[in-house]
Every structure is written in structure tokens, then in C-alpha cells.
């Protein structure tokens, strides 16, 4: 019984050096990239070298890199992610303000594509090389390989420009009372296209994996036994084949959860979705070091948490791990 807390404990302990390593690497990468936030901040207009020097001094950019790093590490350990150079607001507040939009987009995509991907994979594997298998796998390969930004524009051209059914950009119409019925209706309306486009990609990925895994599972001896016992076909598939096929899929789903908060950069850009992906792109362009580090840290933490969660799900679906510890 003590297996679960022990595994969680071990994983969390392992996460500490991992997190510190992540912070070091993130910090190094960002500061090694050419370009200087101060030149990006002053923009156009003749500015004197003195003014730039003063600005650099006030941001602490003149300190030696290891001092800058220690300052950063100290404040991160105290829960302070710093203040954005560009927005002049705490990084944590800026990121928090964008999380709901990204969570809504990625969460909907995640649920929809997991459901459809598993379904397509199972249905395709039941009759390999049949028409249904070929149709589903063609869609899956297309979905997985067509670039989402291209697909996004084609979808916009058809459903927003030509047919006019769906809105073209943004998350909500202006002037609606937040939380009202009309507001959520507008959000759902704006959500359809980006979720559909993104889901096609993830559905394709999951469906292909699930099909392969199901085919392996259906060849297992336990399936032969189940058939010999005279169990119904559906019972064999749902109670015996699927649970055995799903373990590798959990790994992939777990990884995806970790990356969910990094946002879908290209899709968010095409559909003007106010999420974390667009924020990260702008932070890169403006060399907004604190904001970028905050985003990287968030993504790293999410990946680590997702890994721990994935291990727990393994324990739940695979009893063998529990007994062996």
C-alpha cells in the first residue's frame, strides 16, 4: 500500500535538481542569444548612449552574468518571477492572465482529440486493411502531417470568409458582460475553428499510436483465451484488449499535458487567440528576459508534474507495477 506515496516522493525529489538544471539552462540560453533588451525597448527616435546605459543599469543588466543569475534564482526561490521589461507588471500576473485562454483552447483540444483518437484507433485496429481502417488512417496521417497554420488558413477561408459561419479572429466579441450567457456563447463560437484544426493534428497522432498498440494487444494469448471462453466480441475488446493497449498511449498523453500550457504558438497566431503561445513569441522578439524565463519555468514545471501524474496513472492501470514496486 505504501508504494504510491513512495513513488510520488521519489519522483518529486528527483524533480528538484531537474528544476534547478532547467532554470540554469533557460537562463543561459536566453542570455547567450544575440540581441539586447535595451535596444528593443528604446524603439525609434534618437536616443543617447547615456540614456541606454542608464536603462541597462536600472535593469541590472550591467552586473556580471553570475550575479544576475544568483539574483534571479534567489527571487524565483522566494516565489517572485520578476517584473516584465516590456509590460512593467509582475511576470506571474501577466502569465496568469493568459492561462485561462490557453487552458480553454488546449483543454478542449486535448479532450476531443483523446476521445476521437482512441475511438479511431480502436475501430481501425478491429479490421486491419479494411476500408474503414484505410479511410481513418488516411485522415490520421493527413491530420498529423499537414502544417496546422496552413490548415488554419484554409479553414478560415472556407468557414469564416466564404461561408461566414464562424468568426475569424479573437476569443470573444467586444462589449459582452464577462460570465454572461452571451459571453460564453461567443467564446464557444470563437473556439470551434482553432479546436477543430488543432484536434485534427492530435487525433491523427493518437489514432495511429492506438491502432498499432491495439493490433499488438489483439494478437496476445489472453485474447485467444478470452475467445475460447466464449466472451462476447465487445467484452473482449473493451475489457481485455483496450486496457492492455492503452499503456503506451498514456505516455504520449502525459507528455502532451506537460506541453499544454506552452500554448499552440502557430494556431494561436493564426486565430488571434489570446493565449500563452502568442505571449511567448512577443517576449522572444522583445527580449523580455523575465517574462521568457517565467514562461520556460512554467513549461518545465508542467512537464515534471505531468510525468509524476503519468507514473500515477500507470500504477492505476497496470497492477503489475504496484506489486513489483
Amino acid at each position, binding site marked *: 500500500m505504501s508504494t504510491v506515496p513512495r513513488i510520488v516522493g521519489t519522483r518529486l525529489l528527483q524533480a528538484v535538481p531537474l528544476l534547478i538544471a532547467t532554470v540554469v539552462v533557460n537562463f543561459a540560453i536566453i542570455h547567450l542569444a544575440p540581441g539586447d533588451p535595451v535596444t528593443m525597448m528604446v524603439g525609434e527616435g*534618437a536616443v543617447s548612449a547615456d540614456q541606454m546605459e542608464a536603462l541597462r543599469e536600472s535593469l541590472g543588466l550591467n552586473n556580471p552574468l553570475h550575479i544576475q543569475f544568483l539574483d534571479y534564482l534567489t527571487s524565483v526561490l522566494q516565489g517572485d518571477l520578476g517584473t516584465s521589461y516590456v509590460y512593467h507588471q509582475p511576470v506571474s500576473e501577466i502569465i496568469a492572465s493568459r492561462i485561462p485562454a490557453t487552458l480553454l483552447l488546449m483543454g478542449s483540444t486535448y479532450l476531443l482529440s483523446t476521445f476521437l483518437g482512441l475511438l479511431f484507433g480502436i475501430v481501425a485496429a478491429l479490421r486491419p486493411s479494411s476500408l474503414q481502417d484505410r479511410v481513418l488512417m488516411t485522415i490520421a496521417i493527413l491530420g498529423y502531417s499537414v502544417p496546422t497554420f496552413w490548415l488554419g488558413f484554409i479553414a478560415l477561408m472556407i468557414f*469564416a*470568409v466564404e461561408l461566414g459561419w464562424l468568426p475569424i*479572429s479573437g476569443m470573444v466579441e467586444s462589449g459582452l458582460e464577462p460570465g454572461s450567457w452571451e459571453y460564453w456563447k461567443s467564446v464557444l463560437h470563437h473556439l470551434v475553428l482553432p479546436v477543430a484544426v488543432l484536434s485534427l493534428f492530435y487525433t491523427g497522432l493518437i489514432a495511429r499510436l492506438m491502432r498499432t498498440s491495439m493490433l499488438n494487444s489483439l494478437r496476445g494469448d489472453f485474447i485467444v483465451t478470452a475467445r475460447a471462453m466464449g466472451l462476447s466480441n465487445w467484452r473482449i475488446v473493451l475489457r481485455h484488449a483496450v486496457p492492455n493497449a492503452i499503456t503506451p498511449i498514456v505516455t504520449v498523453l502525459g507528455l502532451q499535458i506537460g506541453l499544454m500550457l506552452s500554448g499552440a504558438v502557430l494556431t494561436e497566431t493564426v486565430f488571434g487567440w489570446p493565449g500563452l503561445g502568442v505571449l511567448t513569441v512577443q517576449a522572444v522578439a522583445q527580449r523580455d528576459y523575465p517574462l521568457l524565463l517565467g514562461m520556460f519555468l512554467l513549461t518545465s514545471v508542467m512537464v515534471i508534474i505531468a510525468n509524476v501524474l503519468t507514473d500515477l496513472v500507470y500504477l492505476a492501470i497496470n497492477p503489475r507495477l504496484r506489486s513489483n514496486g
Partner: protein
Amino acid sequence: MQVISTRVRAALLATTIVFGPTAVFAQQAAAPVKGGQIKVAIFAEPTTLMPLSQDINVQIIAAQLYPSLLKFDGKITPKPYLAKAWRVSDDGLTYEFDLVETAKWSDGKAITSADVRFSFEEMILKYQPAGKSNFGVIESIDDSKPGTVVFKLKRSYAPFLSLLNSLYAPIVPKHVYEGTDPMKNENSLTAAVTGGPFKVKEWVKGDHLTVVRNPDAFDTPNLDEMTFRFISDASARMLALKTGAIDYLPPSAMPYSSLAMLEGDENIKLQPIGDEAAAKVLTIGFNLRRAPFDNVKVRQAISHAINNEFIAEAVSFKHEKAAVGPLNSKSWAWDASLKGYNFDPELAKKMLDEAGLPVKADGFRFAMTVNTRPSVAVFHKANEIVVQNLRAIGINASLRPLESAPYTASTYIESDFDVSSVAWISAFDANNLAPLYACENIRPAPYSNFMGYCNKQVDELFAKGAAESDQAKRKAVYVEMQQRIIDDAPAIWPMNWSDWSASRTRVQGLPAGPWDGRDPMDDLWVEAK
């Protein structure tokens, strides 16, 4: 066609001011309608609402929220705004502005000369990067009478009035900003206390920001409401305009490729903004600190090798002409007598041979790199052609694509480049070429003389032109200056470059000033649907 409509509108606007809003011009255009709302696309969320920010998306919105003393049309004709009248002394040293008496901040306090003085002395001169070079000429500001502000200048300075616009000289409330760090001041995030034609209604982070008519403002806009949507992708912005989800794309949000795709749509009106005033020139500058570009003969030879006509046509989808020299030919200070470099690759080869740079065994004279920014379509397409032109005369040229931060660093700060491109808005006053071509502006800072070009005679002409107040005499000075710069060839100037705005046809009275739509949109109105 579009240029004419801009002029008609400017004329209409001028007449309306003289005769008052009751004047009827039934044949030219319908009278402005009060009320209604529009949606405007900008390409990123504003980073703050502080009008001194260098973020163009902030500047577009801030121009609606904060007043300036004057506003301008496409010809840079000053028009009354917060200042209802002004007087300039004969010696050009004293400028007096009478403020609108009823002008109020949105918290009910009066807008007075003290706010104007504070905005210049404590805000613009201290926090705006261009503040010192624009307004360093101010000797003192007198705010002893609340309704009148008096500027004393150190010397006569012809461009002074033209700089009192909402972009360079926004007026902010003294009682809110005094003694604070303006970037961290709460009002810079909320714009709760404003005095311009509009005020903020809602800001949905990452999605849109809506402003509504400010009922207490000294200047009443036509529209009830404007929504600024943040759409970072150029194609998505264009599609939004085509479907009517957006009514207006300010020039900064409109690349030439969108222009080509919107043309022919009868619901869309395209117009170059700012008329002559915003006109730029694509400037591809040499690094004069490096051999062989320190040799004027080499620069002249390369100037003959570049096919300017072809670049202008290909890059702008036939909307622009080749440039002759550092000023756009729409500028008042440009003259048809200026002599540039004709496209003559054979002559270029001969000149390079004479300069001691013959073709070597590998088939090339020398190697060079061309700095380019793939995200700026004009730079990138032009530089691709430049590279081909250079290779045709035996120079082993290659593109050096850089993302914006390293591009700025290599061009302006580290001077680590052979040639690099910039866009220079200078047409509304030729004096604005000084940051790029005057000796004193060679320094490691953005938007400076990155080429390292220095000609004392050119510097003298800059000084002479700025001190002269007679327009015709100024022009003569600037024409001479341009010809000297052209002869020295510190850069090549392949094409004139204008910014275009696009709007649904029902939108009227768009800002015509030169600042990329960063002007007050108080005259904007929409036809009833």
C-alpha cells in the same frame, strides 16, 4: 485616385474648421454622422497605456486617450486641438499657445498650462528616447497663466510646430504623474485619468481593448466607440477586413502583399497615409568603417549595379517608384534636378576594376554579406534582388538573415555588417535626415548614423537648413545637401516607401497624418449601414 481623395478630405476638414460644422458640401461627400462604432486591428496587445511608450500599438491607442497641443493633416498643416490658437514671434524664438478653456481631465480637473509644462519638462524630455533631440531646443516654458503656455527656444527652429503632435508630445495629467515613475504609475496601466477624445471602456487581455467617447473631453469625436483587436498575423488581419470583422487596418498593420490581395474588392478602400509626410525611403547603408566600402568609388560602382526600378516594382507590387537619394520624391524638399545612379552593370564592373578590385581566379572580386530581416518583407525581398545584382558584377554576395534583436544589435550597436537596411521617415521635414547622416549621430544607439558617414559640408547644410525659416530657401539648402549625400553614396536607395491603410468603404475621415495611424481618430465617422 486615392491620393486625390485624401486631399479632398483634407480640404473639407480645413473648410469645416473655418465655417463650422453647419457648412454643407452635398456634392463632395456626406456630412459626418455622429455615433456608431468601428473595429480596428493592431498587431499586438499594447504593452502599457503610457503615451511615451515606444510600442506602436500603445501609441495608436494612446493618441485617442491623451491630447496634444496640435494635430496635423497629411501636409503637416498644424490644426487646433488642445491649443485653440497660437502665435509665433518674428524672431522665431517665442511660441504662445492658448488652451481650450473648457478642457478637463476625466476626473474633472482642468487641463492647464501647468500640465503642458510638466509633460515636456518631466515626461517627454526625460522619458521619451527622441525627447531630447526633438525638444532640446526649448529654453524655458512659462505656465504663469493657466490658459496660455509660452515656449522660449534657444534658437530659431523651423520644425518645432510640426513636432507638437500626439506621438512626440502627448500631454499627461500633472496631478497624477508628478513625483512618480511614469512606467510604474497605475494610470499607465489603466488610463483612468485621460483628457483625449476617448476613454477606456474594457480591456480583455490578449484579445481586444475598447474605448468609448469621453463625454468630458474638449474635443468631441464622431464615433461612440472603437474596439482595437490584437491580431498578430498579417494574413489573418487581411481576412478579418475582407469579412467585415474589422473596419480599419492602420498602416503599420498592412504589408504590400495584403495590399495586392485587397485590391479590386469594392468594399475596401486603400489609401497611402500621410500623403507626402509619412513617405519613407528604403535605405540600404554601407558600413563605411570597413574596406572596401570606405572607398567612395566602390560605393558608387555598387550604386550603378543595383536595379532600383526592378526592386521598386517587385517589392511593392507596382505601388512604388524607384527613389533618387535619401528623401522620398513626395517630399517638398526633394527636387527633380537631383542626379542619382542609373542602372549600368558594365560601368559598375569598369569602376570596380579601376578601384583595384579585379575579378580573381575564383570568379569573384570580393565577398560581402547583406544583412536582412526575413520578418520585414520589404527588406527581405529587396535584399534578395540586391544579392543577385551584386553577384552579376562579380561580387560574392550572400544574405545574412537575422531576427529583429540581433539585427538591431549588429546594425546599430556592434557595427558588425557590410550593408544593412533601414526605413527612414523623413519626408515631412528634411532635417529628420540628420540622425542618419550627420557626423554627431555616429554612436552605438538605435536609429543613429549606423553607416559611420561623416561629411562636414553636409553637417553645415543641416545646420543652415534648420535655422532658415523661409521654405524656398530651406529647400535650396536641402537640395544641395541631398546631392552631396548622393555623390558620397553612403547607402543605396532602391525605392520610395509609403504606408497604406485599408478600410471598409463605410469608414470616413481616417487619420491622414504621417505617423502610421498614431494620430487622433476624432474626425473618423461611419456611414449608417
